[in-house]
């Protein structure tokens, strides 16, 4: 908590805070400030705006999205995004279209980081998973449908 408070009070003030609030990711600045606004959005478009500041992305074969076509257990759906074929990958965001908050996770890269991320997600029902990659200032995406037989968001 101390670290977060410190960062919020120090680094994240001024221009950076404005940029983050406006939903613009400052490339190559890896700052510790969880984008709360983006993780409260209710649709993919809103989430895209909050994370990337734009809603349109071009389909690209270089964004390799690996997700199961049939997930037996919606509580653990492995999703892998590999954009290492692209140059200057700045960030990756993964959306699960029908989740209450579609934006599931983001990853920003700098320095030694390579455009690759693999996580496991919870999904309540059959839906599309969209991976959006920002590379060289442009947005690219890939989509894959995941059929969920047992939902993973119930109590």
């Amino acid at each position, binding site marked *: 908590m101390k670290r977060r408070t410190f960062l919020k009070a120090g680094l994240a003030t001024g221009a950076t805070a404005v940029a983050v609030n406006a939903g613009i990711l400052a490339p190559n600045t890896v700052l510790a400030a969880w984008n709360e606004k983006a993780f409260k959005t209710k649709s993919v478009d809103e989430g895209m705006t909050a994370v990337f500041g734009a809603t349109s992305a071009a389909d690209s074969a270089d964004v390799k999205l690996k997700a199961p076509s049939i997930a037996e257990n919606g509580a653990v759906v492995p999703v892998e995004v590999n954009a290492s074929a692209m140059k200057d990958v700045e960030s990756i965001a993964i959306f699960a279209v029908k989740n209450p908050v579609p*934006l599931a996770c983001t*990853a920003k890269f700098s320095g030694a980081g390579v455009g690759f991320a693999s*996580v496991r997600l919870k999904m309540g029902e059959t839906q599309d998973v969209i991976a959006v990659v920002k590379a060289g200032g442009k947005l690219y995406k890939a989509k894959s449908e995941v059929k969920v037989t047992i939902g993973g968001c119930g109590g």
Partner: protein
Amino acid sequence: MANISFRLKAENKGDFYEVKALFKHPMESGTRKNKATGEVYPADFINEITAKVNGTPAMVAEWSGAVSQNPFLAFRVTGKAGDKVEVSCTSNKGDTGTKTVNLA
């Protein structure tokens, strides 16, 4: 504030190293209800993971509560043997955890 425990390892894949982290965490999204009482389980999830290579930031991941329980994260970094990768995580409740692994 509790400590988040996790396992961390790095594999040499030739052109890059793949760093894998397996966290021990309930990842409660804050939308799940106790069916018997109707009470909402309070949100408790890891929302931020940062990775540094030799002290230089390489990757920051931000998560929502949609990430699975006991979450797994894999990412790739370039580097050489002996480089130090430090991974730290923070939850929305302020719990933290940090671990370091040497690239081999």
